[in-house]
């Protein structure tokens, strides 16, 4: 990837469990975003965290950002089968284009 990696590449969990995905990037950023993509469809914006923020919450989502380590994590709590999707982090690398990570494929079993 131009910007970074996501870990794990794939994750399978049971409903009700928490899912954690990690993203590492290479350059300085203004902000980092997380997107969700259902099987080959468009990207849905989940949450944006700015470079001067360390943690952000939105419903069952919790995002952290560590600019010193150039890394971010996305936590989905109490997962549901409907959370099954691919999750991508995206950074701006101080530009106005998005550079995506390699993605994590999440499978939540009922």
């Amino acid at each position: 990837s131009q910007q970074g990696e996501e870990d794990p590449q794939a994750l399978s969990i049971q409903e009700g469990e928490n899912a954690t995905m990690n993203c590492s990037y290479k350059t300085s950023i203004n902000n980092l975003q997380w997107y969700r993509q259902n099987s080959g469809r468009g990207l849905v914006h989940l949450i944006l965290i700015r470079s001067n923020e360390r943690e952000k919450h939105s419903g069952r989502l919790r995002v952290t950002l560590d600019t010193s380590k150039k890394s971010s994590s996305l936590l989905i709590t109490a997962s549901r089968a409907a959370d099954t999707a691919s999750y991508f982090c995206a950074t701006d690398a101080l530009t106005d284009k998005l550079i995506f990570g390699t993605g994590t494929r999440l499978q939540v079993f009922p």
Partner: protein
Amino acid sequence: DAGVTQSPTHLIKTRGQQVTLRCSPKSGHDTVSWYQQALGQEPQFIFQYYEEEERQRGNFPDRFSGHQFPNYSSELNVNALLLGDSALYLCASSLRWNYNEQFFGPGTRLTVL
């Protein structure tokens, strides 16, 4: 409030042909970005249009070109199609002053045979 729309949904072309994909941005948005997403890969930035001009470009050959119209809608053209051009093409719209919030369309699935 209409979101980002793209047409067509699916397209099958033959190597060497040319293709045009279309995107209408979210109401009120003035900036359109295009991304290519190969199967199983992350989206890759192709280029961005604002005020009817290409403002930024990713690492794509000149076979990829675009256009933005006065109503902010946009076209992506690909000439001399290669098998490797098979991908999901995503359009994202935003406001120039708030480019971080990009709203994506459902994409156009292009298959090159």
